[in-house]
C-alpha cells in the first residue's frame, strides 16, 4: 500500500460522520445515498460528499442497479483501516512498556542504594 493510499484511508475513517455512514453500510450490506440520508443527522448532500471520500479511499465501491447507485463496503480495505488504528494503539503499548522498564529500573536502583 502506498503512503498516499494510507493518507486517504486514515482521513476517511477519522471523521465520525463517515464512520456512521460506514457503519450503516456494514450493517445493511448495500445501500443507496438516499437510503443512507434518511438514517443520518446530516443532509443528502453531506452523505454524497462522504461517499466520494470513502470511495476514493477504497473503503466502499458502487454499482448501478436500474436508475439507482448502490454502495457497499470493501471489507479488505476496512480491515486495513482497523489495523492502522490498532497500530496507533500498539505504538502507545510500546511506549508504556518502555516507561514501565525505565521507572522500575530507576526505582530498583534507588532501593539498592538505600540498602533496602
Amino acid at each position, binding site marked *: 500500500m502506498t503512503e498516499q493510499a494510507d493518507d486517504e484511508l486514515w482521513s476517511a475513517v*477519522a471523521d465520525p460522520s463517515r464512520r456512521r455512514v460506514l*457503519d450503516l453500510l456494514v450493517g445493511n450490506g448495500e445501500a443507496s445515498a438516499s437510503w443512507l440520508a434518511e438514517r443520518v443527522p446530516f443532509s443528502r448532500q453531506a452523505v454524497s460528499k462522504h461517499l466520494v471520500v470513502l470511495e476514493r479511499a477504497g473503503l466502499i465501491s458502487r454499482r448501478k442497479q436500474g436508475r439507482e447507485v448502490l454502495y457497499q463496503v470493501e471489507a479488505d480495505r476496512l480491515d486495513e483501516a482497523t489495523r492502522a488504528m490498532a497500530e496507533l494503539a500498539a505504538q502507545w503499548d510500546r511506549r508504556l512498556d518502555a516507561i514501565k522498564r525505565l*521507572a522500575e529500573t530507576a*526505582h530498583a536502583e534507588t532501593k539498592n542504594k538505600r540498602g533496602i
Partner: protein
Amino acid sequence: MSGLVIEREALIEAPAEVVWRTITEPDQITRWFADRVDLVVEPGAHGYMGFGEQGGPVVVEVVDRPTRFSFRWNNSGGGEPVAGSSVLVEFTLTPEGDERTRLRVVESGHESLAWADAEKQRYADEHQDGWGPILDRLAALLGKRQPE
C-alpha cells in the same frame, strides 16, 4: 459516536513520583518517545520534540505533579499545536499502594485533524488541489515507528 480516542494503560512497580519523572524529564522522554526533547514542564510552555529528521512544536497543557500531565503535539514541522488542529496526549498516574502506579494514557484529537481535512476536501473538490499538509501530518502520525 465518539472520535478516535486511543486509551492504554500499564501497571508499574514504582511510586508515582518515579513514574512522573520518567514521563516528564526531557532526558527520560528521549528514552521512550522522541529523539530530541526541548521541554519545560509548565502549563502553557512551548517546546519541541524531534523524531529523526522530523519533529514539531509541543505545548504543555496540564501539569499536576505527580498525577496528571498532558501535552499537545502533531508530529509535523507545521504550526503551533492548538485545540482543534492537534493531538492531545493525557497521562494519568494513580498510586496503588506505596510502590505501584497505574499509568493511563489517552490520545485524542485525530478526528479534529480529520474535521480540518473535511474543509480541505471541500477546497480540493473545487480546486483539484489534492490532499494537503494535514494529510502529511496524519501520515507522519501513522507511519512513525518509534525506536524502543
